[in-house]
Structure formats: structure tokens, C-alpha cells
């Protein structure tokens, strides 16, 4: 069984898994990191959104072999110790989460967006295609704007 070494949330990990096992399952089922959620497995719902070398990816379609030697960040690694990321703070302020299932992915997508553009327009925010079945979209929009203001 091939083994793959990469960094998850700042820690080096090694998993034994077939090369083509989607990273999502290596994270969830081999490493017990359950922030990234399964919602479709085909890069449609975006619930699993996490970062690979700082860019948003959908680990349900990234083979674990592709993560080798790279840095994976999931929602668990976003805060700096006890200090929440400003996007997480904004999420709390706007009371965004309903059931919460989509929210790790929504937050990771928002963080990646704010990395690309400091002051996202409504059209930029519209490009986040993550499904929220509870329909929290407007609060997500408000939270992204609030986070942008916080991050200046």
C-alpha cells in the first residue's frame, strides 16, 4: 500500500492508502479530521472545501497522492490557537449557521475568496457555488462583507 506524507493544519502526517483514494476520505476516515463534509463526491456541492497550499480545493476529487509534500488546511486549522480567524468571527457575529453542515466549506471558500480579493463585490460572492440546504446565503453574504471590513 503506497504511503503519502503531507502537512495537515501544520502537522506532518503519513497515511497508507491507494494513490487514487480521494483526499476527503484520507482526512475523514484515516485521520479523523471531520470538518470537511461529504455532500456529493463530484465537486458539485462544495461541502468538503478545504485549502491545498492556500487555495480552495474540493478534496472529494483530489487524489491523496496529489497532496504528497503539500500543505492541507481544513476548517480545524483555520483558527490561530484560541484566536478565531476573522471570517469565523464574522460568521458568529452574523449568526450564519443553521444546521451547520455546509458551513466549514462555506467558510473555507470565503477565506480563499478574501485572499484573492480584499473587497469582494456581490458578483465575486455570487461565484461561491457552495450549496447551503438551509438557505443561509444572505447571511453568508453579509458575513463575508463584515469579514472584509475586519481584515481591512
Amino acid at each position: 500500500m503506497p504511503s503519502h506524507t503531507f502537512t495537515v493544519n501544520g502537522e506532518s502526517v503519513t497515511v497508507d492508502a491507494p494513490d487514487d483514494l480521494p483526499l476527503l476520505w484520507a482526512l475523514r476516515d484515516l485521520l479523523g479530521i471531520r470538518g470537511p463534509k461529504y455532500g456529493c463526491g463530484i465537486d458539485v456541492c462544495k461541502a468538503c472545501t478545504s485549502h491545498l497550499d492556500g487555495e480552495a480545493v474540493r478534496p472529494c476529487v483530489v487524489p491523496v497522492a496529489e497532496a504528497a509534500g503539500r500543505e492541507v488546511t481544513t476548517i480545524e486549522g483555520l483558527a490561530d490557537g484560541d484566536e478565531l480567524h476573522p471570517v469565523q468571527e464574522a460568521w458568529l457575529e452574523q449568526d450564519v449557521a443553521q444546521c451547520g453542515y455546509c458551513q466549514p466549506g462555506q467558510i473555507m471558500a470565503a477565506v480563499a475568496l478574501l485572499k484573492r480579493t480584499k473587497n469582494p463585490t456581490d458578483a465575486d460572492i455570487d461565484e461561491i457555488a457552495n450549496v447551503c440546504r438551509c438557505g443561509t446565503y444572505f447571511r453568508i453574504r453579509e458575513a463575508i462583507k463584515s469579514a472584509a471590513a475586519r481584515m481591512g
Partner: protein
Amino acid sequence: MPGVLDVVTIGTGVAVVAETFGQALDGKEALDVTWGPGTVDALSDDGIKARLKAATPSLDVLGLLVKKVEGEFDFAFASHAPLETNSAVADVRSDGAEVWLGLKSPIIAQAAIAKAVGLPVSKVKVHVVQSGGSFGRRLFYDAALEAAAVSKKSGRPIRLMWSRIDDTRHGRMRPATHHRVRATYAAGQVLTFQHQVAAVETDFRHGLGDALTAAAASIPSGIGNATFAQTLFLTTVKSPYNFGLTTQTLTEVPLKMHTGSWRSVYSANTRGAEEIIVDELAAKLGKDPVAFRREFLKTARQRAVLAKVAEEGDWGRELPAGWAQGVGFHDEYKACTACLVEIDATDPKEPRVTKAVIAADVGRVINPRGLEAQMLGGLTDAISTTLRAGLHIDEGLPLEGSYSQFHYARQKDSPKDVQIYVIEGADEPGGAGELGVPAAVGAVANAYARATGTKPRSFPINFDVDFTPFPR
């Protein structure tokens, strides 16, 4: 196959047990299963629509000179589409069982699991855990039964999860409905209002959370379930307007399909269709939709929420061609709400609700932010199911298999401006979880109608098969 530990056949399917879900899903793809027949293999949308139409009672015979407004509506099946697919954890041993899952009816679930695995109820421990929003889906505890059956057969604890495609095609859905609605009027007054609804049977066999109602709903031959459906329809569906002699009836067509209550049960379609007719009636009488509703609503409390959205939403303001405002109202669960939306339907195939103003009076408010969140969720459900999200049934199964095909709204389909006003009443708290859907269905449909000059009759409005279905 790598990682696959076991393959187990249970009453409802074949389970692949693996070290990771990825490997279990691969294993599932590799299975070669000969399935028995389904319950409605010969039926597709056309056939179901014809059955519903035939089952819808005719409207009363009218004299030739009676002035009337009428409409016949179809609503497609809608998936509950919980983002978290059907799932449960079970550990069944010879001397006891434990299960963990999101549940709305744990007491009957416990009894059913005990029966299924052959243990006394006292030896089955059910843990109700937080789960993904399911909007009615988790009234059913089938995931627990499956996980328990697999655990028992495979002799190990099981974390069961359905794939998205199975969840969409073999999960539950809001039944398709057909509606005949008619109002008659004379001298500026509405004389009669008649609404005949036919629906594919909604499965209520989960009961109301206790053993007694579950047993009553499960009485064989469908009588139990049908009685349950009638009671629910008659207690929840009411007209808030002084429309003279008002009759609303439900006829169920007992097709054996995986249906279930979907946020607001009958009201989204039933009251949604009525709100459309209310707009058409207002137009016939030469009245503005808001002024007309104000005149015919029954109570001051109802008129207050309507007045609030008209004022805050600047009802009647100028909008560019292809854009329009629309309004809807709903009263249920000792609560009432009005919704005003603006839609950009410049491209009628790609309409976007750009703004929503909602007012709700649910009596005493315990958690205002939570209440607003429920109204926001109801709005998103209404935008989705009115404009684009539905299931096409083809030979007994939905064609849709994922969110690329079942078009639940995304950020790009949602309004950039949402204002929600809570009007605090002194009464005991009413319900809010389902309240938002029907008024918003009416508002979105009415806005679309006004923007495009059409009369929407079939929902979702844009419902082409714009994808290649996954293989069956």
C-alpha cells in the same frame, strides 16, 4: 478490492463495508446487482400528472353569467435533498444494540430497531444526535434500521452513509400535486372560493413521534395514512381571506412512492397556488395586489404584516422593464407573514430574485435571530422550488442524482438584499419553521408573472432536463 471488508445484503439493498467511505463507494460501483421490480416502474411524469388530474374533483358547475377567475396548477416532486445524506451509526451485538443518528421520532425508531434485530426494546439504546437540516426527511428512521441490519449481519459497528445519488433517487420527496382553483365575484365582492387539490399520497407512517399515532397511520390498506392526511390538510390549510363560501379539499392518489412531509407539508403548493389566483383576482377587479389583500384579509394582525412589507419594500416603486415586485401572504401555526420580492426576469429563463422584504408576527418571540433565520430559509426554499428545483420521474425513479441536476438555489440565485421584520405580538409563541415557505412561493411566482406578463401554472417554472442523467 482495497479496503473492502464485507458485502452484506439486507432487505433494502446491498451494503459495502470498507475502511473508508471512498473505498465503500468504489465497491458499490463495482457491484453487479439484479434488483427486483420497483413499485411504480411503469410510471413517469406524464402518467403521474394524468393520474393526478383525473383524481382532482371538478369545480362546481356555474351559471353562464357568473364572473370568475380560475387556474389549474401542477407542482413537481421536490427532493428533501439534505446536504448530509442519510446516515446512522449502529453497533448491534447479541445482548444489546446502540444506534446514533439524527431523528425526529426516536421512540418509534427504538421499537422498530428492536423488532428488526430481535432484541427487547429495553436492550436498544437510541442516541439522538445533531444532524444536517433535512426538512422532513429525518421523520423517517430507515438509516438506523439499515445500519443495524448491516451491523448485525457483518458482526461489527457500522457507520452507514448513503451516496448522494442514492439519496436523491431513493430518498424521500415532496409529492407532486395538481390543483384546480376558482373564485367567483360580482360587484367588487368575492362570492366563492374553491380549491381542489390532488396529491400523490404523503407517507405519514412515522406518526407524530409516539407509538400510537405511528400505529394508527400504519393501519394496512392505507386507510390509516389517508385519515391522517385528511386531518392534517384540514387543520393546516385555511384561507386567510373573506372570500365568501370557501372550500378546500384534498384527494390523495395512493402511488407507492417514497414521499414524505417537506417543510410546510401541503401549504407551500396549496397556499402558493391560491396566492397566484389572489393576484389574478385583484387584476380582474382592477385592484392593486396589496390593496386587494388589505381589503379581504380577515384580521388587523394579518393586515399589519402586509402593511409592513408594502411600506419597507416600497411597494409600487418604478422598476426597469423585465423586473417586477410580487407579494404573498400566509397565515398558519398561530402566526402570519407577508413577503415582498423583486425579481429580475429580463431573461425569463434565468430569473433572479434580487430583493426580499419579509414581515412575520409569530406572537411572543423567544429568539429573534433564530426566527429571522427560519424566514430566510423558507424564502430560499421558495425561490428554489418555484423557479428551478424539482425532480423528473422517469420509469419510477428521479432522473436527478445530485445538486448539479436538482437545482436548489446557490448564492448566485439568492437576493443581495433581504430585510426581515419581526412584529412582536403578545400572544403565546406560534410556529416559524415552516411559515416562510408558502408566502414566499406566492411572492416569487407573482413577481415572475408580473415581470414576464405570463401566468405561471407549472412549477418549477424553468424545469428543462438540462443535464445528462447518471446511469440507473
